[in-house]
């Protein structure tokens, strides 16, 4: 009976799912299509499946395969994600649970840092790393995350922490928990979903980030995947084959989808009373 009532919901979900997914099916199909075929038919199915496109895409024109660039990307993403989570949680903890001089001012700065378009800072930041001799390493791409540089993450975690009753902290303190102990043992488990969210967002945004690595990294062997995806896209000179770009994009999507599919279970398994209701 109960399942019966949910039929409209399933229908809606499937419809919505189709809308979300069809363009992607087309994307995969189109990676097998020639330039002529690509826009001429609305149907996603290609006339034939020729896997050589994927073989070529995987090999790349560089001396390395895409596997090498996947590895590079992970060398950036893993430290960056860890840094972002740790620093954002600490800072958010400070904002959500403590009083200190000029708190409103600091919080305004945090919000304000989200309003500033990052593009104009690219050049000075580049020079700063050049001055330290750290260009063409992954440090400029990862280290800033140690400083809670994504205001949005801190803001998100602050919002979640506000939903966790302060009585939890007080009880723990009476039991002799230290300041950090409360965070690690009491609060972090409560806000696990948002921590997973922050990690996943960092992962996915880093996968797509193009401008930062383009400017900071100059050795081809150190390129992350996002640069390789555009390596062949020369819009001014020789032109490029769309299916190759699409095939590379499809390959590049796989880890992101996998990470999301694995992590999504954790998104919503926080302890009740935690989180955003209140």
């Amino acid at each position: 009976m109960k399942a019966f009532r949910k039929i409209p919901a399933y229908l809606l979900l499937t419809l919505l799912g189709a809308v979300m997914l069809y363009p992607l099916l087309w994307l995969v199909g189109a990676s097998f299509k020639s330039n002529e075929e690509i826009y001429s038919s609305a149907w996603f199915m290609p006339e034939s499946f020729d896997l050589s496109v994927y073989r070529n895409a995987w090999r790349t024109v560089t001396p390395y395969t895409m596997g090498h660039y996947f590895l590079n990307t992970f060398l950036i993403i893993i430290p960056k994600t860890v840094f972002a989570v740790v620093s954002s949680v600490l800072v958010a903890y400070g904002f959500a649970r403590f009083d200190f001089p000029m708190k409103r001012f600091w919080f305004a700065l945090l919000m304000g840092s989200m309003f500033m378009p990052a593009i104009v800072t690219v050049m000075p930041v580049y020079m700063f790393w050049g001055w330290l001799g750290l260009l063409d390493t992954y440090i400029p791409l990862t280290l800033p995350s140690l400083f809670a540089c994504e205001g949005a993450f801190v803001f998100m975690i602050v919002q979640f922490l506000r939903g966790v009753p302060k009585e939890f902290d007080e009880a723990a303190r009476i039991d002799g928990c230290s300041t950090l102990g409360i965070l690690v043992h009491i609060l972090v488990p409560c806000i696990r979903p948002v921590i997973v969210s922050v990690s996943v967002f960092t992962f996915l945004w880093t996968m797509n980030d193009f401008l930062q690595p383009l400017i900071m990294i100059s050795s081809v062997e150190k390129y992350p995947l996002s640069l390789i995806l555009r390596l062949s896209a020369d819009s001014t000179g020789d032109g490029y084959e769309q299916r190759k770009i699409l095939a590379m994009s499809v390959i590049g999507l796989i880890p992101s989808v996998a990470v999301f599919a694995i992590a999504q279970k954790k998104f919503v398994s926080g302890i009740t009373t935690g989180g955003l209701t209140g």
Partner: protein
Amino acid sequence: MKTKTCNNPVGTGKYTGLLLISPFIAGFLLFTAYPFFASLVLGMTETAGGELRFAGTDTFKTMLRDSGFRKAVGVTVKYTLILVPLKLAVSLFAALLLNMGIRGIGVYRTVFYIPSILGSSLAAVIMWQYLFTSDGLADQLLGLAGLPHISWYGDGRYALWMIILLRLWEFGSAMILFLNALRDIPAEYYEAVKVDGCGSIRAFFTITLPLLRNAIFLNLILQTIAAMQEFSAPYMITGGGPMKSTETVGMLIYNEMFRFGDISMANAVSWGLFMLIASAVIILFRLTGGMKEEM
């Protein structure tokens, strides 16, 4: 909301909090404040053959006079006003559907999130191309429904909608935050209203919506900021055209900075955008009562 219990509920010293946020302060100085100041200096020294000249106020005046800037502000505000409410509504709707205790929720969640992974990559650009050019899928569907052809790319009135649709399609992140919040509403609340004979629509308005207040506020702020800074989607899909109808302020900054190499103008426009976002966020805080009670 809960009332404030005490000023320093669990913290030990006056400076513990400050110590905890110190990474942020250091990072702010190093990666936000310093580069901005340096960028201003660069802007000043770059003009007129390396000669130092304070061009700040001049540049600002030029910017405010410039019709391109005013138009970009208009486009950005319109874009934000349309996109943010739609995105919040769609992501909340999807989250509610997913929260009905259905089977295969993981699959649906993943499917709904996949578009967000694409962002505004070349793949997304090629896809939109396929959907919205003449005789594209969108046009064919309109034709099937007996509706007239729409000039998506070529007409300024619709080109912005094309960008909005891309970003709307990528509602995954907002949906995740709503799902997090929905899962934390105890089922007993609903049981209680069911006993009262309330319909599910009423339950939504009397229970769900009020309890989601914080999540809505969070999404509202984050999505507004993201929308007002938008640059990559119009940059990749329409290049700002036709007739600058999709040229956002973010795109203007990028163009000034990198295409035209005018750092001082890029700085001036950045400050303009900063003010714009700051006022939008302040208005939102005021309207919703924001986080007043705790900050």
